[in-house]
């Protein structure tokens, strides 16, 4: 196998990447120039929505990059955070927390999502690995993670109902900048998402754990020969997946104030599109992809109405795949060792 990689390899393609970013930025700058303040406002909203997508897209790209495994439970982890938070508040279990109940509820939601992610690791990945040899070669983890998605979704529907619910936060601080309205929670969410992802990139590139994860991504057997207990490192990945989904969902809930047992499906499919758009296995690709999908969504709604969104996003994705099959930032080869 002669595969270059997105993160590990020397940045030969750095100029290509810079070009991609410049072109995309130029397109949106042009849109602002032509459309003025109204479009600028749409772009701000799009970036905020993109922050949610990119966080979930990074969770997808991380598991697929290291384990060759499309983790279908990710949307349900996202949903668990929102619905658990709503449930705790609704059932009055957080009386002690007073005005901070919303925050305590969201943190509890993130904890539950992370725990759920570890359960998935225990019962899909590790179980199968010990029973059937190298589980990364099987479609079974994918199918069983789909099973977990449905189980989590229906557990929530059974206990909390299938209705969409309001989750309000006791503040609404808008920042007015150059005549644009920027929601403070949204700005915080964009900052949070970028910070977490930057930290993750640093960890992957410069720490012992990061090197171990990248070696597992390339070949779990080499990692094991070098002393990495793969079965002990893999849960770290699922922990990160849970935290990223939880964070994204908490930000989403604060920003948009809506939760439902199906909230993860919508965000999950957009995040998968974002990941593929940016290049599977590339973290910065997932970030760029997330922002592009967010922007495309708000602009599509603005120009063509809500019903056009799916068509335009998936159409754009297909065009990018045809022109550049590895995605905007992806590695040359699709296969193992993408991270």
């Amino acid at each position, binding site marked *: 196998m002669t595969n270059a990689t997105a993160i590990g390899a020397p940045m030969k393609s750095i100029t290509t990447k810079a070009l991609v970013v410049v072109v995309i930025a130029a397109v949106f700058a042009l849109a602002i120039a032509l459309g003025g303040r109204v479009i600028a406002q749409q772009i701000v909203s799009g970036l905020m929505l993109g922050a949610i997508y990119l966080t979930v897209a990074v969770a997808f790209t991380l598991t697929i990059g290291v384990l060759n495994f499309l983790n279908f439970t990710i949307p349900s982890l996202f949903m668990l955070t929102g619905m658990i938070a709503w449930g705790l508040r609704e059932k009055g279990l957080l009386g002690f927390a007073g005005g901070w109940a919303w925050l305590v509820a969201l943190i509890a939601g993130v904890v539950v999502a992370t725990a759920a992610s570890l359960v998935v690791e225990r019962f899909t990945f590790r179980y199968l690995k010990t029973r059937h040899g190298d589980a990364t070669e099987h479609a079974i983890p994918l199918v069983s993670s789909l099973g977990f998605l449905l189980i989590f979704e229906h557990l929530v529907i059974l206990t909390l109902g299938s209705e969409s619910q309001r989750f309000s936060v006791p503040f609404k601080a808008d920042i007015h900048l150059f005549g644009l309205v920027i929601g403070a929670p949204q700005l915080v969410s964009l900052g949070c998402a970028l910070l977490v992802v930057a930290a993750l990139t640093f960890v992957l590139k410069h720490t012992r754990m990061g090197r171990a994860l990248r070696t597992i991504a390339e070949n779990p057997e080499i990692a094991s020969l070098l*002393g990495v207990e793969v079965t002990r490192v893999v849960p770290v990945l699922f922990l990160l997946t849970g935290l990223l989904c939880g964070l994204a969902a908490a930000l989403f809930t604060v920003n948009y104030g809506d939760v439902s047992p199906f909230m993860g499906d919508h965000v999950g499919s957009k995040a998968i599109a974002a990941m593929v758009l940016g290049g599977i296995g590339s973290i910065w690709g997932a970030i760029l992809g997330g922002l592009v999908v967010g922007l495309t969504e708000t602009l599509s709604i603005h120009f063509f109405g809500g019903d056009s969104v799916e068509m335009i996003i998936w159409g754009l994705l297909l065009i990018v795949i045809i022109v550049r099959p590895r995605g905007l930032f992806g590695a040359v080869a699709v296969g193992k060792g993408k991270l």
Partner: protein
Amino acid sequence: MLLEVENLDVRHGRTHAVKALSFGVGADEIVTVLGSNGAGKTSLLRALQGLTPTSGGRVVFAGEDITKLSPPQRLRRGLALVPEGRQIAISLTVHENLLMGVYCRDDGDIARDIKRIYDRFPNLGARRDMSASVLSGGEQQMLAIGRALLARPRLMMLDEPSLGLSPLLVERLFDLIVEIHRDGLAILLVEQNTQMALEIAGRGIVMELGRAALEGAAADLRDDERLAAAYLGDGHS
């Protein structure tokens, strides 16, 4: 004996790759395992490191039964494998590959030991921050061996390290193995290059269809015509 193998059995589904094999490697020995394609050499080494489960027998290392241990646990006890095909991590830089070599350590000598590897293999130092994929075959082998050395093993197992190297590089490789051995490591060497392996080894084992067909001092094996017969691979000699 540093490594003792007793009645080891390895199966891949229906293929019985290693059949009731018993042998030992002393702490100051170079032992070579020879045999034609498919004789079971790789299966043997992989089982010794714990990559492939054994279906019978025992592996004892430094007096401890390690049959049930995972590959990382065996590495921490001093047993290292440089696998067939080198297997360096090409998505990591040369230096990161070496850092993976010390993954299992947390002592204070790490920086010094890595520097020693660069002193020993100047080619690697010159490509320190490049992707390991740019290395030539010979350099990759140096990296694989250097990386394994950094784990400070007591016994190093090498699976066909000379595969694909030019004759000159093969010479150098064998010199390196002798050097490593002089530094105090025991060596278990699987080779197709029978003559050279028997020159540096003290003892040899010739495998045939998973069994030890022939065993003895390297000097005796070199002149034994049954060795050549084993390579004809009919398995009934």
